[in-house]
């Protein structure tokens, strides 16, 4: 099927960005340089209070047998809205066979100032900084937004038996992609994770490529 590419950008390593994705359009994330996580959230373009709820979506997908904390099919917004905001229609890592033990993504938290304080690295750039920059593009302050529990694309983390967060290097390779079909007009909010202290980005932060396209 022919693809009409409307926007095609590379977001530099360790930075944040927003992109507009209209209903019916596809938002594609491409692993531009290999093993790199992107933290994503989505806002309803006409009501910023309606935002994606990753942890809620994990449970709703789990209850329907279509996903969970490590792979998602339907992305729901927070209560009281609970609308399907987008659907994952292609996921080369989550749907493929990479020899991994789990879905390949993580519907949970990102790195923050406090976390890096706890880890003894105060002042290190985090996804919180990226999100703050991204939200500024659409006139929002972090006090008025929610980005703590998000779609960590290609983050191979899980909750271990002791309740600790475990991480392994991502299964993603250069050229892999994941496609989200927008079910409403959306603002995609992007953090290209700046972490270089853990296996999350295989110890090196990299750039990522994003496309908005129409099929037809």
């Amino acid at each position, binding site marked *: 099927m022919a693809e009409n590419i409307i926007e095609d950008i590379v977001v530099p390593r360790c930075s944040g960005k927003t992109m507009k994705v209209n209903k019916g359009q596809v938002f594609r994330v491409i692993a531009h340089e290999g093993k790199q996580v992107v933290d994503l959230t989505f806002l309803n373009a006409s009501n910023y209070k309606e935002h994606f*709820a990753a942890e809620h979506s994990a449970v709703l997908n789990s209850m329907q047998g279509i996903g969970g904390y490590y792979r998602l099919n339907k992305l729901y917004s927070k209560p009281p809205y609970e609308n399907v905001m987008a659907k994952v229609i292609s996921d080369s890592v989550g749907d493929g066979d990479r020899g991994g033990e789990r879905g390949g993504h993580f519907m949970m938290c990102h790195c923050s100032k406090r976390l890096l304080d706890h880890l003894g690295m105060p002042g290190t750039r985090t996804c919180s900084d990226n999100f703050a920059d991204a939200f500024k593009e659409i006139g929002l302050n972090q006090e008025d937004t929610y980005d703590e529990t998000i779609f960590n694309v290609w983050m191979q983390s899980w909750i271990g038996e002791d309740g*600790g967060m475990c991480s392994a290097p991502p299964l993603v390779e250069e050229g892999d992609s994941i496609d989200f079909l927008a079910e409403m007009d959306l603002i995609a909010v992007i953090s290209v994770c700046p972490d270089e202290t853990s296996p999350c980005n295989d110890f090196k932060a990299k750039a990522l490529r994003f496309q908005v396209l129409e099929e037809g």
Partner: protein
Amino acid sequence: MSDNLIDEFVIPKCSGKAFKVNRGQRLRVIEYEGKQVASLMFFNAHNYKEQFMAEFSGGLSYMQPPNMGSVGSHYRLGELYSKVPYENLMLRVTDNKLGDHFLGTHCTKKTMEIQGVPGHRSCSDNFSDALQEFGLQLKDVYSPSVLNAFANVTIDQKGDGVLHVEPPRSEQGDYIEFEAEMDVLVAVSACPDDQSVINDHSCKAIQIQILEGSESAEKAAE
């Protein structure tokens, strides 16, 4: 002395209630009858935009000195933090003998639809009712992720990461106790889900106690 009771009440089954707990005071959420989940939200009492973040707090509890997991974890929360950009310590867990809780979403209109009971009362309704008194609506709450006290729920370590829900192990009198590190507004939902095993298929009441704080907290507050 350390157990001085300030207030005590029972939240009837399938209902919600919001109330304030001051810095240094202790909050006990108690199984009034047993095997009943109490879903808990927390707000800074002076800035309702500063809200407790459940999963985030599990991660922040786990990842800190002296050893990973020494303060707490996703399955045994030690410290409760507020959302970015605040990231303040809101409360600490001071007594949690049973240990069971789930840091994750509460039941909603959609979870009831998926369970085949559209229109069934959910924690969303309980929270809406409880927060109304303080001028808050569900759309002002950033995340549906809460501290589901006594929930016996785990996340699969492999595959898609599905949820495993078991009946609660809690019995009458079991409790989880917190000490407030700031003045907080607490919203409690006595979870109205009688459809799943989460409350052992029957909804029950939850007891609340607010107590004077420990000496160490009084010192820290000076």
